[in-house]
């Protein structure tokens, strides 16, 4: 069942087009994450769904109702801001009550609701404090609580965790996930943090320069990026890219990347490959492992002997920079396997994880 439908949505500020013909359908109960670099239009899109920004053209539907020209308060949404946006002169309790009071609910109904949600978020002991007396994490809980008490049809999150430190961010992320599992309310969540996107999203939307690049489940977007931008944007450390050409030899297809011929027999081409086509072959660091440790996950066995020139310990893994012809690639080794610099090691490539892009169009082929 479609809960939110964004149709042919355009937004311009003067001659600057910040959103270009956005189309998106969101099912009830989905947790959609809008991901992209700053300035890609993800926040603008969220503000348009909220009704805080006007569309230049297009339509927005929420719950089957056309809300394109409807005021934010009548859209049955609640929003959590990066800056928390708590009303500074009101107590936590008044902050949480405000929306319901504006809607004319009697205080006898508001009180228990606020207290219930406050207990749920472990902020019931803070109800009589002012926002300025709270820590960042507590403020964000209050902001989430303020959205919860309204019991809206849709939750909108605008980079809610960006102002928190790394540890708090991780724990709040888990809590938001739990809340979504408990409540099942449709949510749209904007972030530039790919970890948040990967962990929270039921589906994620990757955006760039006002256009949607790819929509899909996190693992799908991660493993089958539709173009070079998405492939490059997701993953830390980033995907390895090897430039080369396709070779069609009888029934066999391979990619000549200079230092090696990567067999592409198992690769599911989306377009018909041509001989000599200039391509970029992408493979994530975790798909390049020491040949000895490589898990036989149904992948095509393929290994090369390469010279390591640099290693980095991340704690859980060792990142190894390897020379491959004229290019450098990064491999993720287990933490107990540290190759000696300069001494060639055998590394296995999981070719089932390859992504091949046309060098000209930058699209997946």
């Amino acid at each position, binding site marked *: 069942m479609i809960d939110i439908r964004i149709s042919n949505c355009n937004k311009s500020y003067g001659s600057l087009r910040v959103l270009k013909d956005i189309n998106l359908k969101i099912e009830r109960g989905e947790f959609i994450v809008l991901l992209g670099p700053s300035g890609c239009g993800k926040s603008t899109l969220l503000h348009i769904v909220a*009704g805080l920004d006007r569309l230049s053209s297009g339509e927005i539907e929420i719950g089957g109702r056309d809300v394109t020209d409807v005021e*934010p*308060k009548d859209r049955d949404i609640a929003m959590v*801001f990066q800056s928390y946006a708590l009303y500074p002169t009101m107590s936590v309790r008044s902050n949480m009550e405000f*929306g319901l009071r504006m809607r004319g609910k009697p205080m006898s109904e508001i009180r228990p609701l606020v207290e219930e949600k406050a207990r749920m978020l472990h902020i019931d002991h803070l109800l009589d404090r002012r926002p300025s007396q709270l820590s960042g994490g507590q403020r964000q809980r209050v902001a989430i609580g303020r959205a919860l008490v309204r019991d809206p049809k849709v939750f909108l999150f605008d980079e809610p965790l960006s102002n928190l430190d790394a540890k708090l961010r991780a724990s709040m992320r888990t809590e938001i996930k739990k809340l979504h599992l408990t409540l099942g309310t449709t949510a749209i969540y904007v972030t530039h943090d790919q970890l948040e996107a990967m962990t929270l999203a039921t589906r994620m939307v990757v955006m760039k320069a006002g256009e949607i690049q790819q929509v899909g489940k996190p693992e799908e977007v991660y493993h089958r990026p539709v173009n070079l931008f998405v492939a490059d944007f997701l993953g830390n450390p980033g995907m390895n890219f090897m430039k080369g050409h396709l070779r069609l030899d009888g029934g066999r297809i391979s990619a000549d990347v200079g230092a090696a011929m990567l067999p592409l027999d198992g690769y599911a081409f989306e377009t018909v490959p041509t001989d000599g086509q200039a391509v970029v072959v992408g493979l994530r660091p975790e798909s390049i492992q020491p040949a000895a440790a490589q898990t036989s996950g149904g992948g095509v066995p393929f290994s090369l002997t390469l010279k390591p020139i640099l290693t980095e310990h991340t704690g859980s893994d060792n990142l190894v920079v390897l020379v491959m012809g004229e290019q450098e690639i990064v491999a993720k080794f287990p933490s107990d396997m540290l190759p000696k610099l300069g001494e060639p090691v055998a590394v296995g490539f999981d070719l089932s994880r390859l992504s091949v892009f046309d060098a000209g169009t930058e699209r997946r082929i």
Partner: protein
Amino acid sequence: MSAPIDAISRPARSGWLTPRRRKAILARGVLYLLLAIVAIFFAGPLYILLSTSFKTMPEIQSGGLMTLPHEPTVQPWITAWGEACIGITCGGLKGYFGNSMVMTIPAVLISVMIGAINGYALAKWPFPGARFVFAALVAGNFVPFQVVLAPVAVTLRTLGLFGSVEGLILIHVIYGIPITTMLFRNFFLSVPNDLIKAARIDGAGFFWIFFRIVLPLSPSVIVVALILQFTGIWNDFLFAVSFSNPSSAPMTVALNNLVNSNFGVKEYNVHMAATVIAAAPTLILYILLGRYFLRGMTAGAVKG
């Protein structure tokens, strides 16, 4: 005050009167000297004003401007308030003091309120042409009042308000709006937009957000606007003398008529008492709200 001195003297604990310490003391000395001169410069006239107002006329005529009164008397104050002749009536200043209050209080409240709403709209609810409106208001601050005297006179006459307190209120409100709007608009720019957005989503409208969220954040700028407008309107002489008649004249006009009357002996003690009475409301306002005023003037300069 003691904290900075400590901070300066601390590094010199080892030897007393090191060059650095001597320099610091000298700098302090010069600073206090300058402050003292400025204080005398501003407080001196006030002292003369007050001491003269409690003297009898013979004592004044015997000289000694700077001396304290030998036989203090409150008669000049009583005369100034209720008996002095201003023009052809001899009822003292009290009627005019009332005129000033009746004119100033509504004019201040209305101009501050309109300025606050204007500033809020300009800062937080951008509408087509907002920049032009703001530019026009800024320009309005620089219109010399002499230029508008004739048109205002005609306008007031057309409205039937010439010579009335209501007419003066209207003029002061109109010419107060540019400055109060600018003041509030600049302050409200520092109010985070997310607050307004959150409130809009919560269901609050233009005025709800203004009264429940924005105004409670703004006591300091409200005080600044109140003081600015109160002093400006209370002390105004040009509009008052141009557009009032004897029955609606405010304090400034009455004080001028009292002090500049050309018949009889000049009663300096009465004049001084009258001057203090005329200045008292603005003085009291500063004393009561001065610290908010200072805070408001520097708000935004330093974050947090």
